[in-house]
């Protein structure tokens, strides 16, 4: 969201955002016991990660008077 507004005799720019994020990560590690091109073998790690994240920010660019 972007919003231009006026105050203190100057233009201000307000920006806000919210972000929802989800990830899934499956990690399997197999050790081949036959061909080196095998697509199966003994599973030595079988990990499953899931993550949710919500984050956001609000920022405003103030312009107060003329300082130069």
């Amino acid at each position: 969201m972007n919003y231009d507004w006026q105050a203190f005799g100057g233009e201000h720019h307000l920006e806000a955002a919210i972000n929802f994020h989800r990830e899934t990560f499956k990690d399997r590690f197999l050790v081949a016991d036959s061909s080196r091109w095998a697509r199966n073998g003994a599973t030595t790690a079988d990990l499953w990660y899931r993550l949710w994240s919500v984050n956001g920010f609000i920022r405003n660019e103030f312009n107060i008077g003329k300082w130069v």
Partner: protein
Amino acid sequence: MNKKITIILISFLAISNWVFSQENITGKVIDQTDLQPLIGALVQLQSSGNGTVTDEQGNFELTNANGNDKIIIKYLGYDEIIIEVTAQTSDLGRIELQLANTTLDEVIVSASPNNYKGGFKGSNFRINPIALKNINPLSTEEVLRTVPGVNIVGDMGLSNRPNISIRGSWGRRSQKVLLMEDGTPSAPAPYIAPGAYYNPVSDRLTAIEVYKGADMLRFGPNNMYGAINYITAMPPQKPELRVKLIGGQRNYQTGLLSYGGTWNNLGALVEGVYKKFDGFTDNSSVEVLNLNAKIFAKLSDNQSLYFKVSGQFEDNQASLSSQTPFTFDNDPTQNPLDADQFTMRRYGVDIIHKWLPNSNLSFTSKIYATDFERDWWKQVTAKVKASEVKSYIGDEIFNDRYSYLDGKIFGEEDYVIVGRVLTVGKVQRIVVGHTPFRDSKKQ
């Protein structure tokens, strides 16, 4: 006689001059904000529909303009302009186009030759479209190396797995740098596993932006050190078919085919890129196929929509640890480990919508999703003394892959990396040493 010739010559020059002023109209199209040229803007005569596009300096020359007419100037993401011309008009001078308020900053890139993006609080650097076109890089690493504050440790392939460090961050697989494609995080799992196992091929890119500093808070995870935004090609203004074919040493091949254009308020582009390369060492080949399609539509005066789908498929031989100082000194291109392989596929979709309820307020919503899967075979290796290679791996494998060691005298510190050998029973020997490794990530 001489007088006659002079009169004819003067008359001819006058006529040709008159004809020239009747038919040719020139001008230069620039961005109103940064006063930089706009490349590829469409300049069209309203009556006939005939037109042209601006060149790399933003200049155009319209021919066959007769009498009173109107010239329409369009550029995707900018408000169009209509200019009335008469038979006497020959030069329109500088024409300034204003960025439409429905434009999406993430994906519409200005053709400006500036090396920075105004308005960003902090340090930033951009590889502009003209520079990128002129460099015509093999990979993204090649151009990113030129950016101040960016450090790259080369790896195999064509930047498929880049190691980028910004301001001294840990560079391995660019894990501490946020990589984005058109403003969307591109790592397979940006929070859990941010390693860059996907990186766009350089042929698809129009510009590259590098951000550092305060405004990084706008972006997602891993924004401590810096971010890199790869901006892919937008639909051209004038419908065009683009074919790019490149061949080179070590079986380097690139083929790009794209078709796109802008029809009224809708720009669309479909693109396919195929790349193949045998790599700089043995057994380090790369094969990449990327297919993508995108649409940018101005839905109304206060709404726009961007939609992109893409798929990437890779098949690489990826040796991780085949060299020792000894083997490198002998022959830096040799690599006998042929079973390190990496295959991946990635599907992605981006939807961005912008809505301006009034001139002071705008809402941008974005939905993105990717599905990434890789299968990775890693060879299990052993480091043995160079003098003991033959006895360790046996004659057959030695003669097949390590015969360059034959007859050499080795020092105490000379080692060679070979596939690990398992002894089964007392007689049989098998080289197993290969580990299929698979994972998948979704975001």
